[in-house]
């Protein structure tokens, strides 16, 4: 049995250890989400739909809300930058850092930064850049890639992490006790925080009315990163703007519960701007870089609903394909259902290369059911399949559908084919040189053909 779809091939080759970690971590994520959300809300669906409607409204007026956010941020003393492409965003950040003479910084978790590969870029340009989120820190030590939006190392177990710490000299000996691992990382990171000249963060939400940035973490690392550093840079996708502060009551209640099954993350920071005169510490300089990087193209497409995404990872946790294949199978920053839509769109020039991602779904709809902003992900996957076909992108292992449609639009041919399919019962189909059939039969028995029997029965009844 050989599948030729890249994600199916990836899932076949994945180690049992890695697959076990992903399956276990994501299943638990789904259970915790369900438990907490349904404990607190009698009708979470109406809340999800409200959140989706707020995001939809914002996206319809994105230009206006971005302008409002820019004005409010500027009033608070932050400098606002707009970056059209990934390269623009990287250069903008580098030039801000050079302007402040920064050679060493800490960075908290940001999918936007992952998307533009900011870390390796800054390191190449001589800036020491340390990931301060524990998971991302481990990814950095291993020269690995995150495989989940909120749990970047869902694919690793504690034994692997303990080996990494020993190998990299973070710890003198091997110890895979989770608390010990965390303490050791903390000792190592604390020292680096004090030396950092800048802190880079993302943002979960930017309120257009007040210009306040909201950041959620469970480790407090973004707050640590900003405390001693004189410069704060927030890299923000343009779709992160929400209209009003009061909308946070909807989004924050959904985000923690959807992402990690927490009512609220351990830290929720509201950032008002650079340090004011009467604040004892905090960055004196604050820069907000709003990044487009393909987002306006997505907005103009028939898949714009994907821009509602608040990066909770619930769709990854619940997705049976993600659970089998891991986030790495999706060959881009965003894996799982959200990635299968977002990646081929966001990186437009890579569409042909990533057009297989939307096919990696049984269209079961579990992703839509858990989505805190009610994104109709299966519909978007289907639209992308249609787009790939219309643009003539080759699809590995695709079953040609022209014969099917010819048969299914000709009732007499169809009836004949149904009756004739009974012949299959007497043919040695298990040795027929038809690859998809063999793939199927390798794992499953095929039911006996009873083609046309129902029609016959119906006719005798009607003639009675």
């Amino acid at each position, binding site marked *: 049995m050989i599948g030729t779809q890249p994600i199916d091939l990836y899932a076949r080759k994945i180690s049992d250890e890695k697959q076990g970690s992903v399956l276990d971590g994501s299943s638990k994520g789904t259970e915790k989400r369900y438990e907490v959300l349904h404990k607190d809300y009698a009708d979470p669906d109406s809340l999800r739909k409200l959140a989706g409607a707020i995001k939809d409204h914002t996206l319809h007026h994105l230009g206006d809300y971005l302008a409002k956010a820019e004005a409010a941020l500027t009033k608070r003393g932050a400098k606002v930058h707009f970056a059209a492409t990934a390269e623009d965003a990287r250069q903008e950040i580098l030039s801000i850092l050079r302007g402040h003479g920064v050679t060493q910084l800490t960075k908290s978790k940001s999918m936007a930064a992952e998307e533009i590969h900011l870390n390796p870029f800054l390191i190449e340009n001589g800036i020491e850049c340390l990931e301060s989120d524990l998971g991302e820190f481990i990814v950095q030590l291993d020269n690995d890639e995150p495989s989940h939006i909120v749990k970047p190392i869902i694919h690793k177990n504690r034994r692997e992490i303990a080996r990494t710490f020993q190998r990299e000299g973070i710890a003198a000996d091997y110890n895979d006790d989770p608390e010990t691992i965390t303490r050791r990382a903390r000792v190592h990171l604390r020292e680096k925080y004090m030396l950092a000249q800048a802190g880079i963060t993302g943002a979960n939400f930017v309120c257009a009315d007040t210009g306040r940035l909201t950041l959620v973490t469970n480790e407090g690392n973004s707050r640590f990163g900003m405390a001693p550093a004189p410069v704060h840079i927030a890299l923000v996708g343009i779709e992160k703007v929400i209209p009003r502060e009061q909308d946070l009551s909807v989004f924050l209640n959904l985000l923690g519960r959807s992402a990690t099954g927490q009512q609220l993350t351990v830290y929720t920071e509201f950032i008002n701007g650079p340090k004011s005169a009467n604040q004892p510490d905090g960055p004196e300089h604050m820069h907000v870089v709003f990044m487009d990087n393909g987002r306006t193209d997505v907005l103009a497409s028939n898949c714009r609903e994907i821009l509602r995404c608040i990066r909770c990872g619930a769709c990854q946790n619940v997705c049976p394909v993600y659970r089998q294949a891991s986030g790495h199978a999706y060959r881009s920053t965003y894996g799982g259902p959200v990635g299968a839509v977002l990646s081929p769109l966001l990186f437009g020039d890579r569409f042909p290369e990533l057009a297989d991602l939307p096919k990696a779904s049984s*269209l079961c709809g579990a992703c839509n059911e858990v989505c805190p902003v009610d994104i109709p992900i299966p519909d978007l996957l289907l639209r992308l399949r249609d787009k790939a076909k219309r643009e003539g992108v080759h699809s590995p292992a695709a079953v040609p559908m022209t014969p099917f449609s010819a048969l299914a639009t000709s009732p007499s041919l169809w009836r004949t084919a149904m009756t004739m399919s009974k012949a299959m019962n007497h043919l040695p189909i298990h040795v027929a040189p038809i690859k998809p059939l063999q793939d199927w039969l390798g*794992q499953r028995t095929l039911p006996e053909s009873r083609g046309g029997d129902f029609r016959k029965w*119906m006719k005798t009844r009607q003639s009675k």
Partner: protein
Amino acid sequence: MSTPSVRPLNQRVLLMGTCLCDAFFDDVAKATVEVLEHLGVSVDFPENQTCCSQPAFNSGDWESSRKVARHCAEVFAGEVPVIVPSGSCAAMNRHGNKLQFEEEPNASIDSLAKRTREVIDFIFNDLNIRTWPGKFAQPTRIAFHRSCHSRGTKTGEAVRTLLSSIENAEVVPFGQSEQCCGFGGTFSVTFPHISGQMGTLKLDHMLEIRPDMLVGTDMSCLMHLNGLAQNQGRAIPQFHAIQILRDTLVKPNQSNP
């Protein structure tokens, strides 16, 4: 079943037999006719029907699938409900078509969407039948797979309620019931490994509760699960919910399964 209807309804429906019942599962289509007729509904089967178009639609070949969908809408034209023993084909008529005809509105496609009902949903919600006068001869544990295309529809609740009302039946919950069985039509052909793994996991969860039978509302899911279970040496009886309604119906001189 040749009993006269319990209460003649002045209702006529069109049966969409589904391509899978046409090719493999004739008894499911028969059961649909028999149960509906028992309930006093008269059933017509348009001879020119073929398929709802889903295989081509899911593959992304919408030019091909629209042709099939147009044919389907033509065959089932009219005013009366279109009843289908499959949540998946029902979802295609009710929702999938909306997507593929987004840019070329089509009144007969819209009409088909409005009139299509999955059969158990129809019995429960349209005919308003809330308990089923059926009986199993022995206490029977049922693992019910609410197939994914019935997500967010009224089918799941309808099946659970009707099956649970059958004497000696117990619908037993199992783990991770929100997970897909892994069939997904052409998905099972183009992603054979993942599809098989998903199905195996589904069977693990369903069989863990030691059921006497698996019941579903989509023969596609059941065909896949049955094929895997047989291949893995853990075969178990599998039925469409409509077969259970027919077979448990208490009538004189008829044995129960």
